[in-house]
């Protein structure tokens, strides 16, 4: 299926190649570069590029293109999903997935790729299994290895692959047994000029960090499972149990994983926690434009709106801005025309605002488009949909684990049109 993989950095250098079948010359990437040139923005490179003999399927993450070469029919999502999995694994191993990190750990990368794919077909993609096969590099281990000459390839052969719960390592041991769950909800919304909501939906995930000894069997139940409209699970979750009782029952993988992602049914009206008052105008004939933006909280149930960040792509005609924020800092990049304003926390008593003028290209006619405003924010200790975890129980092991649940609401793709 997948013949080869090329990693290409932002400047167009192929800095890693790996072949699972016969070697494919790297000249095949020329087609990719061609497509890259045609596309104006990096993210506009088509994910699938046909060439006379091969097909190139690429994903862009962390400013690195992962280009897979395939030769015959294969579901494109299969390859794309796999490439993303590769990136996730790298991130998991090296903390970041940058060119430097990959180059530093080229041997580990190679070993990983070797294990993840056999003859182009995915073999072991569960991070728990991979970690058993190849230990992730840590500073301590690198030091020890250089001194003793030992390896970071697992001495023990992996047993996880053979067990009924392939996602969990065997023989896990912790002194502190902990299980943390983060319920994170994101609001995707488009707000129109007049402030009314065009679309708004809530997407949530439950990320877990489980460090429990042995083979614990967990069940997690919700106070209001009806809220969840559409869910997708980590493979460890027993689907039947969910169907029947609306209870999440699972043997967790070891470490960090995404237990569940869900969509809150759209019948419920979504509470929009912030509002924006804006007045952005360009006058015909003058080389000045006015910019006036005020943020305010609304429907936050008494919780503070934090880490607010406003960004907006201003029209090409804008040369510079002269703005005055009432709090936080703002920057304007005259090349990309990107305005960002780091607001911080919204104080309901004193609403943050950003006011001032924009200088336009002299003589040019006024831009006819108005910029859209993207907002990011966080609200701690609240799930905006009202979802609540009822209880978490553990079976199968004797000890008492420490359990923790955290709620958070974030802005997802939150846009205000002006």
């Amino acid at each position, binding site marked *: 299926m997948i013949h080869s993989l090329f990693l290409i950095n932002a400047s167009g250098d192929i800095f890693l190649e790996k072949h699972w079948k016969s070697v494919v010359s790297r000249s095949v990437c020329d087609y990719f570069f061609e497509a890259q040139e045609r596309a104006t923005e990096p993210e506009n490179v088509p994910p699938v590029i046909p060439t006379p003999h091969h097909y190139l399927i690429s994903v862009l993450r962390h400013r690195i293109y992962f280009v897979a070469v395939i030769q015959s029919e294969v*579901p494109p*999502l*299969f390859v794309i*999903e796999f490439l993303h999995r590769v990136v996730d694994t790298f991130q998991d191993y090296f903390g970041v997935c940058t060119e430097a990190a990959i180059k530093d750990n080229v041997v580990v990368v190679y070993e990983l790729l070797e294990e993840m794919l056999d003859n182009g077909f995915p073999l072991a993609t569960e991070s728990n299994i991979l970690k058993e096969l190849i230990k992730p590099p840590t500073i301590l281990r690198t030091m020890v290895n250089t001194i003793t000459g030992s390896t970071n390839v697992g001495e023990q052969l992996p047993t996880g692959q053979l067990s009924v719960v392939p996602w969990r390592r065997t023989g896990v041991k912790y002194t502190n047994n902990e299980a943390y769950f983060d319920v994170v909800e994101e609001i995707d919304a488009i707000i129109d000029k007049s402030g009314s909501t065009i679309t708004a*939906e809530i997407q949530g995930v439950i990320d877990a960090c489980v460090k429990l000894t042995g083979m614990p069997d967990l069940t997690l139940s919700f106070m209001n499972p009806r809220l969840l409209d559409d869910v997708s699970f980590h493979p460890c979750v027993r689907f039947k149990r969910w169907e029947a009782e609306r209870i999440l029952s699972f043997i967790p993988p070891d470490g960090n994983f995404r237990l569940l992602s869900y*969509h809150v049914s759209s019948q419920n009206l979504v509470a929009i926690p912030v509002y924006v008052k804006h007045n952005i105008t360009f006058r015909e004939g003058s080389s000045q434009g006015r910019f006036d933006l005020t943020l305010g909280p609304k429907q936050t149930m008494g919780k503070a709106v934090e880490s607010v960040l406003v960004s907006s792509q201003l029209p090409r005609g804008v040369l510079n801005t002269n703005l005055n924020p009432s709090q936080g800092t703002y920057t304007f990049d005259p090349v990309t025309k990107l305005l960002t304003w780091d607001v911080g926390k919204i104080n309901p008593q004193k609403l943050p605002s950003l006011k001032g003028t924009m200088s336009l290209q002299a003589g040019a006619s006024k831009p006819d488009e108005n910029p859209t405003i993207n907002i990011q924010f966080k609200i701690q200790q609240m799930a905006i949909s009202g979802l609540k975890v009822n209880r978490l129980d553990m079976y199968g092991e004797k000890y008492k684990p420490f359990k923790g649940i955290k709620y958070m609401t974030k802005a997802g793709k939150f846009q205000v049109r002006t």
Partner: protein
Amino acid sequence: MLDSNKDSLKLEAMKRIVAMIARGKNASDLFPAVVKNVACKNIEVKKLVYVYLVRYAEEQQDLALLSISTFQRGLKDPNQLIRASALRVLSSIRVTIIVPIMMLAIKEAASDMSPYVRKTAAHAIPKLYSLDPEQKDQLIEVIEKLLADKTTLVAGSVVMAFEEVCPERIDLIHKNYRKLCNLLIDVEEWGQVVIINMLTRYARTQFLNPNINESLLEEGGSGEKTFYGSDDEEDEDEEEKEKKAETAAMAKRKPYVMDPDHRLLLRNTKPLLQSRNAAVVMAVAQLYFHLAPKAEVGVIAKALVRLLRSHSEVQYVVLQNVATMTIKRRGMFEPYLKSFYIRSTDPTQIKVLKLEVLTNLANETNISTILREFQTYIKSMDKDFVAATIQAIGRCATNIGEVRDTCLNGLVQLLSNRDELVVAESVVVIKKLLQMQPEKHSDIIKHMAKLTDNIQVPMARASILWLIGEYCEHVPKIAPDVLRKMAKSFTNEEDIVKLQIINLAAKLYLTNSKQTKLLTQYVLNLAKYDQNYDIRDRARFIRQLIVPTEKSGALSKYAKKLFLALKPAPVLESPFKDRDHFQLGSLSHLLNAKAGGYQELPDWPEAAPDPSVRNVEVFTLLERVTTLTSVPEWTKCSSREKRKEKKVEKPFYSDSEGESGPTESADSESDSGSGSESASGSEVSASGSESEESEEGSESEEEEQKDKKKTKKELKKPVQESESEQSSEEEERKHARKSKISKSESESESDEEDESESESSESESEDSESEAEVKKKKKAAESKPPCKPVKKENKKEKKEISLLDLDDFDPTPSPQVTPVNSFLSSSLVTDLEGLSLSDSVLAPATMAPSSALKSYELLHRITGEGLQVEFCFSRQPFSPDANMVAVQMHFTNNASADAKSLHMEDVKLQSGMRVREFPEIELLPAGETATAVMGIDFCDSTQAANFQLCTQTRKFFVSIQPPVGELMRPVFLTENEFKKEQGQLMGMNEITEKLTLDATCRNEHTIVQRVTAAANLSRVPCGSDKECSPPVPPPDHPVYRFAGRTVTSGSLVLVTVVTREEGAAQLTVNCEKMVIGTMLVKDILLALTQ
């Protein structure tokens, strides 16, 4: 450094080499030095050498051969993981000379007992195939074998191999279809994708189109009608047509009934929509789109919309597919309209695709909101996107009549836009729109004529010129003026514009020759000397046509008709319109071109192919369905039928035993067990008189006939398929039997003796039975060898299928049936229970020991306040879940009051363990008894399953702890297989213990009995001691072998008892699971020495 003695130096060197490879530098010079290290002890060095080897072996074939022997050694390693990795590397080396070695290795690995190794074998198949396609036939054999594998680990990989090597051999799938459907949810995600795609194709060839009525209608309707025709009309039409089509279809075909297998596939794939893997979701979505009835396709919309939250590449692919789906099934995505709204941060390609989807979704009800959205999009900074939006507006306008004018006005406003691209795009779209009703819009045409001065985009200019030319009658004054301007700038125009100028000139000449004659001449002259030959040709052609000369023929008379014919309005179509002939989600669909290796999605068959091809192994599945869902009567008759069936078979099989014993070793082996057993039966109670026997025989025959009648009656009713299958199978067998009987009647007699003896002993053991009951018992006795016939079949098929399968095969009127029908009268229940007991008593050696099952107390009469519960391990396979051990519970109500609603609660299990609860017993009257069966997956450990047994009023804490011997199920192995497997389980996995046999326990029978009582194992028949023919005395020091597999993980458990003089003996247990092995040794030791 590679030659160094130190591993650390070697490692360092290898790391550098691998880094070179990664950067794409050639490191092939180092090949000899690297290959030397292939046998290195250090694992990491070894791995890196493998990496190197796989990369360069192709270039240096001769040197690569040096390494082969290392892998061959690895293939024999006792550790399954080492075997697997050796096979993996061996098969990855692309050297043609080793093809035979690879073939051999794959074949061997395919029958390896570790599923992981088998998986690797499946992976190796496509590798070998790409290396040498001539091996195809042999590989197909291997694939066929692996397809029959029951483990989830293998399924994905082997289907992958199937798709690469022989996707056309759809016949291989038949027998495995239902198994694949059932396993699907437990297969790893990548395997799921491959299997689902394959099953889609399979289903297309095997089942009827569930939308048969609609598709008829489509054939009739969609021919001249566009999809975009206004919705109301279409709906009405559709309804009408539907009626017509329905009647037509009714006349033509029978009403559509979905094949149960088709339903099975749809049902089992549905939960996978919840997968986190986008590829799996997409695969299921396409399966539903291609296979599901129209009404059910809707479920996939939600899941697909969810994928839109994912990475942009995923969005891109999903949107492409959604776009295709929306054309066919618009209603499906309408509720999710807002999810396709565009954000300014989306990449352009995503925006364009979303726009496409929005356009497809537009109808009268939502058009206003969509248009409002479009208006905001037009203000976007992304010009390509704006252009696409304008086209989308144009398409909406053509599709939905009501908004055409609004759209047109909006577009005209755009003509004053400052951006040229926007204007140009609008012009092109307006041109298309105007063609629909030009007479109303002459002012727009005038407006556009003015634009020619400003617009520079050639496509737009050409469009304007064409418009003016086409509708010059509406703008008689302006048209000549435009031509004048154009003539002036003719030489500087682009080619398409020039062509349109010529066209305009020609048309004006025909309508208004007075004003434009000179201008036309001038333009044509200019064109005559143009650089482009197209333009020169066109000019020459037009001149001949329109300018009347003496030479000009008949054609010029018709010039006006030629040029000014009414042209049909163009239809603005989605580029995704015809894409759905590609399988959705495939690469070919995405590219709208056939990719290499793409397998066409076949059309639905006209008539369904024979569904019975999938039946072979399916018995159990259907059985499960029936036992779980059907009414008691039906269960009864089905079980009765089975009993009868077995009865019929019995003499036959005993025939073949005797007959084939000397010749067919396999036969004699398998049957010797039962032979010995029947002998044991006679020992225990040798009082069975022959006369009784014969009577019984005739009785049973009568019974048989009665039963037959009954079943025939039943058959007439539209009963479920399984019945007819069974009966047909049975008939086949009868044929076979007849022929055999004629051959060897004398032998059969003696054999019958044996068996009936045992029967009689059975019946004697129970006192005071009525006639009817005797009959029942009899039948139960007959029900004995459900697996026997199968065994036979298997042998015929070169006994390739391991007898494991048999366990699943055992449908019997067994305990699984009884609990379901708990509302049967309790007496009947006990009867049936008796049946099941006697069943196991008489079961052949593969099944259970001849002694009664040991029962354990679960709840004492006193603590249970009158309720007494015992349980025993029935040693029947637990049909709802093969990984569970069946536990038969025996409830007795000694209290004076009725016990109500007996059920389980609050099950506390060790991790990994699972329980299938027994169905609630609604009422247990005082003094009565009841039985129920539950399944427990002990995960191959002897940890107890704790739960509460609840009645309506009380709860009792109870726990079931299995003896280790019950954690396995018997397996049939031949002696050779046994020895081979044993050879692979040496070392740590072998436990040997010396013992002195108890004085009472020195004969063969007792040893076998005790071992099988202690553990659920089956005797391995050995060719040397001829048990089937008693006259020959057994050898002095017989060896007894027993084999089984653990229930959960399926690891082999092999037990050998070697007897020596004076009761000395040696017990050997080989088992991968050492804990089980040790415990088993203890148990058996105890059993043999007590």
